[in-house]
Structure formats: C-alpha cells, structure tokens
C-alpha cells in the first residue's frame, strides 16, 4: 500500500517535471518555453515538499493548538528550501521573459524557428 503511495506521489511530481522539459524541448513559441520552465520548477518543488512529508504530521508551527500535545511535525527544511526555490524560479522566469521581449523587439517574432540568427 505504502509502495503504491510512494510511486504515485513521486511519480506525479516527476511527471510534472517531465511535462515541463517536454514543453521546453518541443515548443516553438518562446513564451511557451518559459511556461515550460515554470512547470518544471513546480514539479521539482512538489517533489521536495513530498520528500519532507511525514505520515500524520502537522505543519511545523508551534501554535497554541498544538501546545503541550505530542504531535509529529513534517520536515521544515524542505519547506524552507522550496521557499528559496520559488523565489529563484520567479527570478529565472522574469529574466527569461525580458530576454523574450528583447528577441521580439529585434526579430518581430517569438517563434523560435523564425529567428534565423539562432540557427547554426
């Protein structure tokens, strides 16, 4: 039973990553490539968060609701790392979009196969 859960949860996260990579590799539209990068990012964040989950665990917050009770808390370190990763992902998306805007200004198209100077 736990095996099925392990494979399905991690599988879903990895599938999200793969969908993102697929979009990056096959799409011709530069905006769609940036969206693919964001999807890949989300998949990786999902995987990290899933690794930190503990069965029956609560959020790692010592609120009055859990005071004095013997509760299991999920791992806070992956959550802190994902917080960082989300911000970095935002920065990557912003810079990528600005590069797309620059390419559009120069070539008047965002189709990657119409930008001739990128060919080799």
């Amino acid at each position, binding site marked *: 039973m736990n095996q099925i859960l392990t494979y399905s949860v991690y599988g879903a996260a*990895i*599938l999200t990553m793969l969908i993102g990579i*697929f979009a990056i590799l096959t799409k011709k539209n530069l905006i769609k490539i940036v969206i693919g990068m964001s999807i890949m990012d989300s998949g990786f964040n999902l995987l990290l968060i899933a690794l930190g989950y*503990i069965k029956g665990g609560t*959020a790692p917050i*010592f609120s009055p609701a859990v005071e004095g009770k013997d509760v299991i808390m999920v791992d*806070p370190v992956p959550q802190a790392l994902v917080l960082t990763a989300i911000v970095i992902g935002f*920065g990557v998306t912003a810079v990528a979009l*600005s590069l797309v805007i620059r390419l559009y200004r120069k070539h008047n198209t965002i189709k990657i196969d119409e930008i001739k100077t990128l060919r080799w």
Partner: protein
Amino acid sequence: MRKLVIISLLLVLGYYLLDTFAGAEFGKDRKVLSNYYLEKSPSELQVANAVTAIVVNFRGFDTLGEVTVLFLAATGMGTILLRRRSKHTGLNPQRTSPEASKIVQAAGKLLFPAIMILGAYVFIHGHLTPGGGFQGGAIIATGFLLLLISYRQFKVEHKYVTWIESLAGLTFVSIGLLGIVLGPHNSFLENFLNVGTLNELTSGGVIALVYIAVGFKVAAELTGILDTLVNIRETGDID
C-alpha cells in the same frame, strides 16, 4: 518522429528519477537536522513558525543570498530591457492593450488597500503564522499588478522603488552586522534582542525585523519587475 524520440528519452529519465526517489519511502520520518531545528525554534528563539526560524535565523545567510538573487533578477531585467530602442522596429510607444472596464477599475481601487493590509499582515506575522517576507511582498506586488492592469496610465515611480529596496536591503545587512557586534556568539545575523515569549508578536528577536525588511524589499523588487514588464513600450523609449 522527433517528438517520439524526445518522449522516449524523457521516459527513461523519468524512470531513473522515480527509481532513485522510490528508495525514500513517502511519509516516513527521516528527520535528522530538522529535529534540532524543531527543538531549538520554540525553546531558544521562541519562534512559533519553524520554517521562518530556519529561513531567517538558522539559514539567514542563505536568505541574504536569495534576496540578492532577486535583486539581480530585477536589475538584470532593467539592463536587458531599458536599452536604446533601434529606430527601424517602429514600435508604437503607447501601451496597446485596451483600457480595462469600469468594473475592473472600481474593483481594483477597492481591493488595493485591502491587499496592502493583507500583505503587511503576512510579513509582520511571519514568525507566528504561515507566511513571511517573501509571501507578504508577493501579495503587495499583486496589489500593484491589479492597478497596473486596470489603469493604463498608472506607472510606478522607479525612484521610490529603488529607494525602498536599497533601504530595506541595507536594514537587513545592518541587522546582520549588529549581530556580530552585539550577539552573544559574535556571528553574522545572530539574534541580539530579547526573544520574548512564544506566540506573541514581539517574540523571536530580530526575526520579525529581518522579515519586515525582506517584505519591503521583495515588494519593491516584484513591483519594479511587474512595472517594467507592463510599461515596457514606454520605458523602451528611453534614450
């Protein structure tokens, strides 16, 4: 054909990734370092939110780097986009998107103060409830985005954005440096204030102060990025 090759390669990659992670059983307790954090966060720092304690105190230097990356992204965007526009592209210097409807404009005006207050609440209470500087800053930036998409003539004054950003960053670094001078172990970003009691607004010492600075910085940076992206045609004209 090309897609088939890509899909098969991705499936191989996915298989090996899944095979690697399947060894780490889902939902199993494998905390080692986290146990230390979870123990020290409420006892030593009096911070209710363990994630905040890790982000700002235990891994505070990491957060400083993270804020720097965000700053670099905002600056890099400015450098990439605010170059002199070549003359022959013939872009219209006006924003071409149509004016938003009266409903959107009125709702934007109504929601904007509420979004500001929510954002401020989220980053001030970062050590007590889920949330913190990054989340609160992002919420505040969405408020500005709402105004940017509802009013075509709305522009963020980049001068003030830069000032807020620089001052907030300076506050963060100064608090870190004060930790060297005043902290009991003389290390960077160390807590030097009274930690207070758990689940009170004044608990956690410098964590709340650092997160307020981070909130202002992130809000200013994200607002700057959004304004650069939305008003790109106008700003592209700078010679």
